[in-house]
């Protein structure tokens, strides 16, 4: 390897890298991932929001409250995790809040009597989660590679949560399923599985 002083001279001669579009290079892959997922379900599936014509918007709002909170919190956590020396613990706690809320609603629902399960279109729901989550996960990985994560497993896990959150947000308007059991089995578990994949593959995908 070259002499350290020579390396310093060479780097200094190049000058400090100017990255004016730093934020854009992080945000654009995330937006692209969201757009691709929304476009994919829009092209393949019909009658968005029609499953809610009879039930009203409440089931969709519950699903979106969960998934959109992941879509918002995960990039914030990724942004912090990608900046060496920044504490991201509180943001990871924020990411656990949606899951805690679903668990609380599940307990309430159990106390009130459980609805029919698994519902009419669980196969489509599961297929959408399985196909879309990796797409959005890939966007998060691309975004993250622009930064400098030092805890690659944690960053991979959060990228997985983002992937699952985006997939759920995109598919939810087409989903006739309702109830917390349905949400846990066909949304939360696939999202957690995607996060686990991110946790396992993070060191390989995000290494720099």
């Amino acid at each position, binding site marked *: *390897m*070259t002499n*350290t*002083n020579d*390396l*310093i*001279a060479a*780097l*200094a*001669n*190049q*000058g*400090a*890298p100017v*990255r004016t579009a*730093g934020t854009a290079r992080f945000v654009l892959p995330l937006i692209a991932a969201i757009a691709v997922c929304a476009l994919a379900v829009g092209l393949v599936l019909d009658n968005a929001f029609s499953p809610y014509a009879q039930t009203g918007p409440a089931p969709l709002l519950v699903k979106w409250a969960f998934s959109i909170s992941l879509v918002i919190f995960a990039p914030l956590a990724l942004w912090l995790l*990608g*900046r*060496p*020396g*920044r504490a991201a613990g509180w943001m990871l706690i924020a990411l656990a809040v949606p899951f805690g809320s679903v668990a609380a609603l599940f307990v309430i629902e159990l106390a009130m009597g459980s609805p029919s399960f698994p519902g009419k279109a669980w196969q489509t729901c599961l297929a959408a989660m399985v196909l879309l989550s990796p797409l959005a996960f890939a966007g998060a990985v691309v975004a993250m590679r622009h*930064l*400098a994560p*030092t805890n690659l497993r944690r960053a991979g896990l959060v990228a997985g949560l983002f992937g699952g959150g985006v997939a759920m947000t995109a598919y939810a308007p087409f989903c006739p399923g309702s109830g917390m059991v349905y949400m846990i089995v066909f949304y939360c578990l696939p999202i957690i599985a995607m996060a686990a994949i991110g946790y396992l593959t993070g060191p390989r995908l995000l*290494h*720099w």
Partner: protein
Amino acid sequence: MHKIEEYKRNRLDLLIARTREGDKRAYGEFLAEVAIVVRKVLARKIGGDGELEDIVQEVLIACHEKLHTLDPQRPVGPWLRAIAGYKLIDHWRKRGRSPLVIDDSADLPVAADDLARHDVTALLGELPPAQAEAIRMTQIEGLTGQEASERAGIGLSAMKLRVHRGMNRLKTIADENKLP
């Protein structure tokens, strides 16, 4: 000592601020200062000089490539420590083992008494200075590993590693020159 550390931290912040204003010379000074700080921090965890310099260089390249992840309002210290720690762990991972700990001088490849038969000064002159100094302190002056590590300002494991590598090198030299 504490004031020196604080001065170095402030100096790094000052140099990076000047760098952001387009001062190339300040950037060179910043990188040189980074090398000093990182070398000092990692010397306690890495024994071999060549190995240490490899990591220092990796940290320098990482700092250069990922400078945009350092927020202008935040101090350089925590950012630099996180990068150095990451590169150190990455280095250990690549090497495929945890930090080396050599517990017993009985494991040394050359018995310490064998040194007495040779022109020790000439032999030590063949070694990198840090390894020669480590052997001089532990095998000639008779300091314990702990005392030698304190004098050199490095960790005990790092000191043991330096001694071990130095002795390995001496064995190679002895073999090459067919010394008894």
